[in-house]
């Protein structure tokens, strides 16, 4: 199969509005503090630091700079948009400002694409919503469409703005952290903290000088066990991870680092723990979680977490998990150094039974 490379990574997140600074803070072990909820219904979240920009200003600026730095025209690229909320937060703002809610206000998916097309003439725009695997699927299908010869380049735009529907929704499901501590795989974990983030990446069959990883492959499939939780015995997660290894022609013993999904919810972490132990029964690779540093960026996490991870690996050793010795999986208690060309496996799971696992090799 034709190799596909991940380059031109950009990330705006709670650690920093600039990727290399965010990676530097992550390597120092800095964790952001949640911005408190504005009322009794909404919980705190990890907000993007820096200048306040409107959503579309921010997204257009990211797309513009990604294309400019890559030296590409939009017409050369398929744009894959990965987000669960898209711009519904803008509708929330209109209602908060006193407009009356009507059915006619509800946006079609085309409306978002039209706002992008007003400035950029992409070869095509596709909006992907598979819950928290949206960006992972955007990367995976971007790779496959390049390998199938359908497009020259694929630009992935992944984002989750803060919205009241999302923040109250996870509270209604009792999945939000009450302690304000984001601790995946900790015995006293108490749920997730949402994160605001905006990210872009370019997928191409030839590596440019900014290429950070080769996307080897992966697998994404639907677990019909339950719409909000995957099978707690980890069987579907294990099957997806095994298929991902097979599709990527990688043996489990070749995986140097496993980036866990790690939502810090009781059911997800249990299922992922069980799935991981089934796949790596003999010897576990080094383990890492990134949501304590970014928050759960929902549909964007497939790209935000990989952007932070690979940018950090360029700068140094990954920090040890602060509570490694108490965690239910054997996280390293010391910093993790990865060799050049090391293979990374990355898990992403979501509502709607969506489970995905990707394999990447450092460039």
């Amino acid at each position, binding site marked *: *199969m034709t190799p596909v490379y991940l380059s031109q990574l950009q990330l705006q997140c709670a650690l920093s509005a600039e990727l290399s600074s965010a990676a530097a803070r992550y390597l120092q072990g800095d964790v952001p503090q949640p911005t408190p909820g504005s*009322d009794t*219904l909404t919980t705190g979240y990890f907000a993007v630091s820096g200048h306040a920009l409107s959503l579309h200003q921010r997204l257009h600026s990211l797309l513009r700079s990604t294309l400019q730095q890559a030296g590409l025209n939009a017409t050369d690229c398929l744009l894959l948009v990965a987000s*669960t*909320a898209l711009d*519904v937060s803008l*509708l*929330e703002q209109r*209602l*908060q400002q006193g407009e009356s*809610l009507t*059915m006619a206000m*509800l946006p*079609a*998916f*085309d409306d*978002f*694409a039209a706002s992008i097309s007003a400035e950029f003439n992409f070869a*095509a*725009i*596709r*909006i*992907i*919503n*598979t*819950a928290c695997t949206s960006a992972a*699927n955007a990367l995976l*299908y971007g790779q*496959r*469409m390049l*390998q*199938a010869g*359908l497009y020259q380049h694929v630009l992935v735009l992944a984002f989750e703005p803060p919205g*009241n*529907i*999302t923040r*109250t*929704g*996870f*509270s*209604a*499901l009792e999945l939000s952290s009450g302690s304000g501590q984001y601790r995946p795989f900790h015995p006293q974990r108490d749920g997730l903290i949402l994160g605001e983030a905006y990210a872009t990446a370019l997928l191409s069959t030839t590596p440019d000088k900014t290429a950070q990883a080769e996307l080897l492959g992966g*697998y*994404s*499939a*639907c*677990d*019909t066990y339950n*719409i*909000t939780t995957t099978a707690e015995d980890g069987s*579907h997660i294990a099957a997806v991870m095994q298929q991902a290894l097979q*599709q990527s022609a990688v043996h489990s013993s070749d995986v140097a680092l496993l980036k866990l999904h790690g939502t810090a919810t009781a059911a997800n972490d249990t299922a992922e723990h069980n799935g991981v132990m089934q796949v790596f029964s003999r010897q576990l690779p080094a383990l890492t979680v990134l949501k304590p540093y970014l928050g759960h960026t*929902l*549909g964007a996490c497939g790209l935000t977490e990989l952007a932070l991870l690979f940018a950090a690996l360029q700068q140094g050793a990954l920090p040890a998990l602060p509570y490694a010795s108490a965690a239910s999986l054997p996280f390293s208690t010391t910093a993790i150094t990865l060799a050049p060309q090391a293979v990374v496996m990355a898990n992403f799971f*979501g*509502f*709607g*039974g*969506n489970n995905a696992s990707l394999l990447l090799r450092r460039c």
Partner: protein
Amino acid sequence: MFSVIAQHQLRLDANSSDKELKQLLSQQLPHMPRRLDRLALLTLLLAAPFRGQLARGSGIYLAADYPSLANMYALLDTVVVQQQLPKPFEFVNSVSNAACFYAAQMLQLDGPNMFIGAGSAPWQALAELAYADLHCGVVTEALLIRCLQGNNQLSGQAVQLRAGNWQPEQWQFSAFAAAPR
């Protein structure tokens, strides 16, 4: 590129209530899933004729012009206007590809499951995803579904595909429907 195995299309009265859609679906299914929103009901009505026709690892690729409108309206009204917590299932249906989940459950499939906004070229978008999976050997069969709820419509089409030598001249459902079998 493709071999078209089967197709199905449905055009319903846009004023049909969800209860009427459930009754229509219950005539085809031995067990009805609970808490289906309108988009999921339309998807299941389009997918129901393919029960027992697809290999377990087949992919489902769904494109819709809108999310479930009544569900989105209820969420905005509850959370933003009334400032209350949303109903859990309404929230889950809004952030997930719930319609795809219920289709996979009904068809007993555990393969890829993709939901996309329909955009201006829904059949091209769906066919490209399916082609990518067929080309890379991820699936051997694909079910493409398009749902329409906007502009006072309630309709959709579905196509079952395998890898083959036929390529549509135009990215329209009519081309898939007229493809040689």
